[in-house]
């Protein structure tokens, strides 16, 4: 039996969320009294592959096939399901990101395994497996039990964290025969966002709402974000108005994020907005209206005008970072 963790690489490197998934898978394997095996697909250097051992993977299976340079869901599913068969899998773990959401449900059907989307805990019970997961956009928590032998889950971002438990890991390369008929998409164009902190990766997020008043007022917000090394975000009306790019829109119909701290500046805190940020560890609100619903979910708050508060925050943050 084993726990298999899909460790996604981006241009040959693993990111934080892959380490989180491996950390989680290793703890889960510990609970089940079995081994944690990481699976990497694509060209990744040996040394990088071995870095997964630091988070508890005893074995790293590496599959490189140039046709897999593009995420073709059916082909990836075939690869993961075959590997799962070879290692007698009990649970397959994915990070809950674009890739995990694309693959995990397909793999669950291929393995006839019960699926848990956005798990937020290690199993609370092992026989049968039971996990905690977010439901109703964070308005409640569900305790979901497996009725199948095997399980496939996606791990909610930042819900477990990165934990080191070094293992002497070994890399095993494998080949899986893939029929050309599994490949259907052709890449026409790829655009990488570089040199910018990605909203979904960020530990600190500074977000502005309609209370910012106009597109011209974003200078101080951006400065504050820069001092903190934060990503910037916004509410839906702000991106609808074109004050900010659509990639920044968070909420039920935008990005779902879970940073360590989320600054909601001039955001009322409508349920649809909060649905996208309720996984944040700490929420900070600045709003002129002390009755604004954002204060019901915020941990820290300032009742006041954001344009007067921001310069003070920037100054204090600068002192902190330079101090």
């Amino acid at each position: 039996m084993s726990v298999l963790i899909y460790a996604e690489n981006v241009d040959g490197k693993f990111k934080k969320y892959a380490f989180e998934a491996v950390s989680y898978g290793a703890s889960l394997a510990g609970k089940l009294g079995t081994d944690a095996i990481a699976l990497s697909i694509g060209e990744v250097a040996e040394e990088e592959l071995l870095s997964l051992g630091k988070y508890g993977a005893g074995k790293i299976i590496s599959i490189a096939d140039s046709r897999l340079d593009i995420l073709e869901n059916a082909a990836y599913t075939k690869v993961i399901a075959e590997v799962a068969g070879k290692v007698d899998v009990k649970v397959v773990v994915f990070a809950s990101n674009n890739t995990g959401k694309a693959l995990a449900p397909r793999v669950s059907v291929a393995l006839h395994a019960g699926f848990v989307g956005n798990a937020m805990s290690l199993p609370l019970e092992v026989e049968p497996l039971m996990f905690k997961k977010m439901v109703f956009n964070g308005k409640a928590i569900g305790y979901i039990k497996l009725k199948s032998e095997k399980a496939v889950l996606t791990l909610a971002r930042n819900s477990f964290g990165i934990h080191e438990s070094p293992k002497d890991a070994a890399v095993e390369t494998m080949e899986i025969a893939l029929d050309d008929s599994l490949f259907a998409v052709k890449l026409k164009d790829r655009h990488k966002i570089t040199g910018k902190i990605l909203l979904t990766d960020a530990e600190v997020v500074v977000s502005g709402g309609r209370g910012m008043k106009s597109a011209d007022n974003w200078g101080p917000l951006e400065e504050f974000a820069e001092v903190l090394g934060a990503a910037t975000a916004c509410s839906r009306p702000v991106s609808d108005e074109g004050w900010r790019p659509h990639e920044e829109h968070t909420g039920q119909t935008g990005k779902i994020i879970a940073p360590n701290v989320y600054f909601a500046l001039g955001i009322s805190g409508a349920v649809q907005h909060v649905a996208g940020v309720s996984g944040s560890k700490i929420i900070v609100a600045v709003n002129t209206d002390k009755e604004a619903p954002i204060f019901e979910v915020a941990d820290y708050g300032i009742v006041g005008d954001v344009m007067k508060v921001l310069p003070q925050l920037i100054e204090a943050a600068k002192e902190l970072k330079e101090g």
Partner: protein
Amino acid sequence: MKILVLISNVPDTTTKVKFGDGNKELDVSGVQWIINPWDELALTRALELKESSGGKIEKVSVITAGSKVVEPTLRKALAIGADDAIRVDVEARDAYEVSAALAEAVKDENFDLILAGIESSDYNNSAVGGMLSEFLSMPSISSVTSVEQEDEGFSVKREIEGGTEVLAINQPFVAIVQKGIAINPRIPSMRGIMMARKKPLVVKEVSAVGALTEFDHFELPAPKGKVTLVDADNAKELIRLLHEDAKVI
């Protein structure tokens, strides 16, 4: 060409969530049901594609797996502009059961494009679109932000980790869509509502497959502690608290 849009019937997003039967299920009394917001946008895009296809796309169908209570939601989809609707008659208990039922209902229908939303706002699974494509052995593209008709197939834009890709595809596939697919959802017009009454809504029976998961119980999150307020003239104190107490910056 024919397009199918999957419709998930969910409680209105402003619903105050309560549970009944010893916290074992959602208390649906007083709940307003809506088309899952992503599916509303998917349907909007499907109709736009049909209208601009010069007759190449003949039909947009919608489908929901559920009991009779989902029919008003399907009627709303018809009022928005779908040509016909299918209700797959199962009270499915998990995404696996939903997807298996949908797959059985559409496997002989040869849709050229199937659109699913990225996530239902009830159980937040992000599962059904991917599962259905595996059941049907169809290609799937997820996190899709735009679909355009092109030559013999479609041009699809999707988000990947750290960027975006534009893909071409020339065979039937499942697109799992998210923000960007359409901007404003279409709403039913008076005429649309009148016409919807005459459009076909067929009910399909399928064999039972059984769920692979079940909810043991639900709970509401512990109420948040009271917010710690900092004086607006002393905003610097906030940074100190975040650094020293909360330890997040």
